[in-house]
């Protein structure tokens, strides 16, 4: 009797552990804070319901920067996650690190997956040397948000938003309001103080940031943004600041810029399309009419387009094949139209697949949410060139900091626009060369 109980217990243990071990466990690290943590958790839950043999541990690992650092530490400790979300500008570092399983290899060996349904604009960014290393996931670009109510007050046509730098300045002047002491109570425009906007203004004039076709046909060796196009942007930024049309936020202060616009302290905002939902809700709450438009460019500039920003999903190697397969299954599922639509509607990042777009279009979603359409159209109408596909630079994070510092030096009056731009280019080239020395 006693013996049979023991035997039964042992059997139970074996069965349970077999079930437990039969489950493939994978980790998914992401950098999407706020309400999106819950969203991703529930999406993973749904995935697990459909794949009972796979367990996904979802972990929010802080900002993009923190996530990359944690990945580096984890890789060195031999405890890398299976799937990780890395920002756009980390692409080259990830490729050079040689730790990822290129998405292309997984796609090629899986006949059920058709990469052709993805939008070329998105693929063009993440494809390096003809190879797709990661799965596009959250993609955005910058658009101009404007306050139609304030436009009307200033005697401007609310249905004629500025399309050029010159118009931004001209309309901005009319939108600025000062009090008796000359202090600004309402400004014309703002955007988060971030190099991303410089990069986008460059692409919008079809101008590259670095040589070797923006790093697309070979490792870049020097920065080349000290060009007439670059100077136009610096001068534009400088004029806006000198005339008090723009409120410059703190470095990389996305929330600050949003708040200025929502509290109607500024009439225009250039920010990511991932804010569309937030802006729609915010405008309603604060009682003003929202308008959206494409990113402005200098009147005499060559037409270009916007660059995809955001992040993509990477599968990290060094795991047993069973786990890599499970990770691929998960990444594939996240890229399906239904998941893309959920993600799009809840965040404003646009769907990266054509079939998701058509599904949304036919359901009448874009008729109800015209601002989402602005974002999408701007991307679709972008000319596809090396400049608008975005630069691939290993030292990109550092170059961003250099450009931001250069703009700060210019608006503080320490440098002229010409000097600041030349300084930024020189420092960026130094950063690029230092990075390249590591891989010679």
């Amino acid at each position, binding site marked *: 009797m006693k013996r049979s109980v023991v035997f039964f217990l042992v059997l139970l243990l074996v069965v349970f552990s077999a079930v437990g071990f039969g489950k493939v466990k994978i980790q998914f690290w992401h950098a999407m804070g706020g309400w999106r943590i819950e969203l991703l958790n529930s999406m993973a839950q749904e995935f697990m319901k459909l794949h009972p043999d796979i367990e996904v541990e979802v972990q929010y690992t802080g900002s993009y920067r923190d996530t990359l650092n944690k990945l580096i530490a984890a890789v060195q400790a031999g405890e890398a996650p299976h799937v990780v979300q890395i920002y756009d500008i980390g692409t080259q570092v990830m490729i050079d690190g040689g730790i990822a399983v290129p998405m292309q290899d997984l796609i090629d060996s899986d006949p059920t997956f058709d990469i052709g349904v993805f939008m070329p604009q998105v693929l063009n960014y993440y494809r390096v040397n003809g190879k797709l290393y990661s799965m596009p996931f959250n993609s955005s670009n910058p658009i101009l948000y404007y306050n139609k109510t304030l436009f009307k007050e200033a005697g401007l046509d609310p249905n004629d938003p500025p399309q050029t730098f010159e118009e931004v300045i001209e309309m901005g002047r009319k939108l600025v309001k000062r009090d008796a*002491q000359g*202090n*600004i109570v309402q400004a014309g425009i703002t955007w988060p103080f971030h190099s991303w906007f410089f990069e986008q203004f460059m692409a919008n004039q079809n101008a590259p940031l670095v040589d070797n076709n923006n790093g697309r046909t070979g490792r870049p060796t020097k920065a080349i943004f000290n060009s007439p196009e670059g100077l136009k942007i610096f001068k534009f930024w400088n004029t806006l600041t000198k005339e008090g049309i723009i409120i410059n936020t*703190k470095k990389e202060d996305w929330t600050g810029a949003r708040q200025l616009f929502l509290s109607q302290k500024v009439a225009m905002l250039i920010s990511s399309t991932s804010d569309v939902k937030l802006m729609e809700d915010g405008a309603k709450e604060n009682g003003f009419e929202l308008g959206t438009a494409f990113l402005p460019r200098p009147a005499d500039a060559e037409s270009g387009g916007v660059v995809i920003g955001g992040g993509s999903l990477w599968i990290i190697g060094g795991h047993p094949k069973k786990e890599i397969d499970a990770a691929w299954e998960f990444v594939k599922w996240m890229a399906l139209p239904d998941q893309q639509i959920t993600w799009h509607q809840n965040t404003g990042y646009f769907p990266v697949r054509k079939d998701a777009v058509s599904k949304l279009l036919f359901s009448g979603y874009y008729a109800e949410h015209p601002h989402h359409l602005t974002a999408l159209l701007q991307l679709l109408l972008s000319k596809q060139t090396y400049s608008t596909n975005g630069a691939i630079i290993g030292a990109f994070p550092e170059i961003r900091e250099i450009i931001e510092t250069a703009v700060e030096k210019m608006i503080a009056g320490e440098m002229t626009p010409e000097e600041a731009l030349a300084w930024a280019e020189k420092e960026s080239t130094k950063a690029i060369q230092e990075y390249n020395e590591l*891989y010679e």
Partner: protein
Amino acid sequence: MSRKIAPYLLLIPTFLVIGLFIYWPAVYSFNLSFHRRTPFGNRMIFVGWKNFIRLFEWSEYTNTVVVTVSYVALSVSITVILSLLLAMLLNQKIPGVRLYRTFIFAPYAISPAIAGVLWSFLLNPVVGHVNYFLTKTFGLQVEWLTTKPYAFYSIVFATVWKMMPFDVIFYLAGLQSIPDELLESSIIDGASLWKRIRHIIVPLLSPITFYLVIMNIITTMFAAFAIIDVMTKGGPANSTTTMIYRLYLDAFAFQKTGIAAAESVVLFLIMSVVTIFYFLLVEKRVHYQ
């Protein structure tokens, strides 16, 4: 024999912990400062003194040294002086003094990052209370966190605010340990308040001041990272980028491990020199009871 071994045996755990978490990383970063390493560590190249030469030829880095020195000097001296004055006020026998003490100590319980967020809100040019007050009373509008030199002042201000309670606690304890007879006899001898402070209180508190100054220097050199990161991110135009913030950027934002290690060695050397000189020169003047 066993008596001689026993102490060493007992020290082993301590040395193990120190060795593992302090000496080994320190040696490692010294070694790293002569190398350049790829972000994922799959390649490491020996570069000799190149990292150090690069640092001192780099105007943005030498600028951080200037920023650090002025930031440390300014915030430490303001904190120490203000804390002493506040401690003397709080040492008075006035009604509600406990309440005041509690209020003054409050910032100490707040984490530096939260302190940074708090001051960012207060100093926000558009919706912040500080500017609201300034515009209403003086018609002034200052871009506290985004223009020179106000961003630097704001950082110093927030640091002082955050660091002061620690100093006040120590000074209060010190003041309460000054014998009443000393102060009473000085009053009988007709010493003015200033003379009492100058010749009795300050000398008797000098061991505390000595300790606080070095602690504050360490805090501002190393721990003030959070306030800067939250309030200004080193801007505008690197005017609030201290050495430790630059180190953070190079190590964790740009993955330039070798350069960052060289920066940590420079910081280590500066700190060693400061500490040695401080102990050699200043400690002689400290008046221990």
